[in-house]
């Protein structure tokens, strides 16, 4: 059993390392994207340069509440990272992640810009689409291991991918939403900057946009970690699976146009949820 002090140190190291991993992943993401479009692409550390520049810019804000929500969004993502690394209850982690997204939504809602509000409404739709699948994932892990704790993920002695193959595919759809990839890139129009002018982040400028970018680094690192956890018995294979999944996301990002939120919601609730429930029924009767 770990002492309290070691736990605090592990949590701190994870909270410091996660954004570095996320930034590197995004840098690689942008280069791979560029190569797929036969471009040279930006340097590897481009996300870091962007954030450094944003931190040095003038402070502009519409109201202080909006800024508070940006910080809350970052804080709850940091908390979720710490909880994951400490192997805490996965239902608690889901809750913390949901609160983090709700902070982002409220931040977009508390200004009067119509694009910001459209972005927030789309973010709500995204949450509505992927939250049930995340709950199914947690239930599936419980049915495999008999424990809700993230530290017991290897308890069954075999990789989760073998017991939760269909939920893995459903989780790939969730990954596309969380990484802001097409066809689900609705709330921020991350790549098509002009559609709703970056939606939910439109009214954030300078350092506060940097806060949101850093929060997205945490999100990227967390998604990567969950993908790797599908083969948690051997982390090398797990990371390989995560890299391949990330590559598939980038490929689909370049292949697909953005679709409407109605399409996303109906398909996530039929295809995504159908896959998850089928997997759970199979696990239950096995």
């Amino acid at each position, binding site marked *: 059993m770990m002492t309290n002090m070691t736990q605090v140190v592990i949590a701190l190291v994870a909270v410091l390392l996660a954004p570095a991993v996320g930034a590197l992943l995004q840098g690689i993401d*942008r280069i791979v994207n*560029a190569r797929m*479009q*036969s*471009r*040279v*692409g*930006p*340097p590897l550390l*481009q996300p870091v*340069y*962007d954030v*450094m*520049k944003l*931190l*040095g*810019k*003038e*402070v*502009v*804000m*519409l*109201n202080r509440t909006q800024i508070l929500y940006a910080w809350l969004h970052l804080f709850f993502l940091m908390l979720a990272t710490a909880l994951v690394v400490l192997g805490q209850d996965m239902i608690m982690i889901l809750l913390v992640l949901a609160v983090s997204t709700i902070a982002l939504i409220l931040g977009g809602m508390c200004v009067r810009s119509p694009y910001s509000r459209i972005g927030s409404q789309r973010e709500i739709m995204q949450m509505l689409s992927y939250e049930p699948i995340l709950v199914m994932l947690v239930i599936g892990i419980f049915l495999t291991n008999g424990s809700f704790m993230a530290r017991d993920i290897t308890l069954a002695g075999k990789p989760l991918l073998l017991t939760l193959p269909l939920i893995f595919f459903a989780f790939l759809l969730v990954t596309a939403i969380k990484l802001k990839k097409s066809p689900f890139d609705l709330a921020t129009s991350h790549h098509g*900057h*002009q559609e709703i*002018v*970056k939606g939910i*982040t*439109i*009214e*954030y*400028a*300078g350092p506060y*946009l940097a806060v949101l970018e850093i929060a997205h680094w945490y999100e990227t690192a967390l998604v990567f970690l969950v993908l790797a956890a599908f083969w948690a018995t051997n982390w090398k294979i797990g990371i390989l699976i995560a890299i391949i999944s990330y590559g598939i996301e980038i490929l689909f990002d370049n292949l697909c146009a953005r679709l409407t939120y109605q399409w996303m919601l109906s398909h996530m609730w039929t295809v995504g949820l159908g896959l998850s429930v089928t997997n759970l029924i199979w696990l239950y009767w096995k």
Partner: protein
Amino acid sequence: MIGCVDRSPWIVHYNCNSCNGCDIELLACLTPLYDLERFGVLHVGNPKHADILVVTGSVNHRNARVLKNVYDQMPGPRMVVAMGACGSTGGIFADCYNVLGGVEKVIPVDVWIPGCPPKPEAIIDGMVRAVQLWKANPAFQPQGGAARMSLIRRPPASAARPVTPAAAAQPTQNEEADPDGRQSS
């Protein structure tokens, strides 16, 4: 912090009164052949995220107010690039009754890119020079400290930027005074 400025200049593009020649050339710079993103340049649609305002076309009485508004929404430090013959001087439309002239009649311009339309190499060079100017001039350092709650910009005392008071105030006054004709100012 300011050292990273030349590594990620994000541009916002405003078409004042352009024939779209310059706009298409600017967008062509983002395509695989020229790939402005390898310098970290992103084309954002939002003045609040942008560092460089690229203006194409000549300024007239109607759009001067909009141009000023877009400029005012950008957080400092910020650069303005006037692109093409019309953006620089008014071009062949300079003598039209409704045209004020180049972009510098409304907002301070840092870099002019000549040409009708400018060559892609000239556009890339213009962007690079804009960020170099920004890095070289300490007056462009952010003021820091006090947060700006309102989006109405008051010129900071420290920023020594080349703007003549007559040029900044003229367009809206002209419009209110005589919406149909161009005044000799």
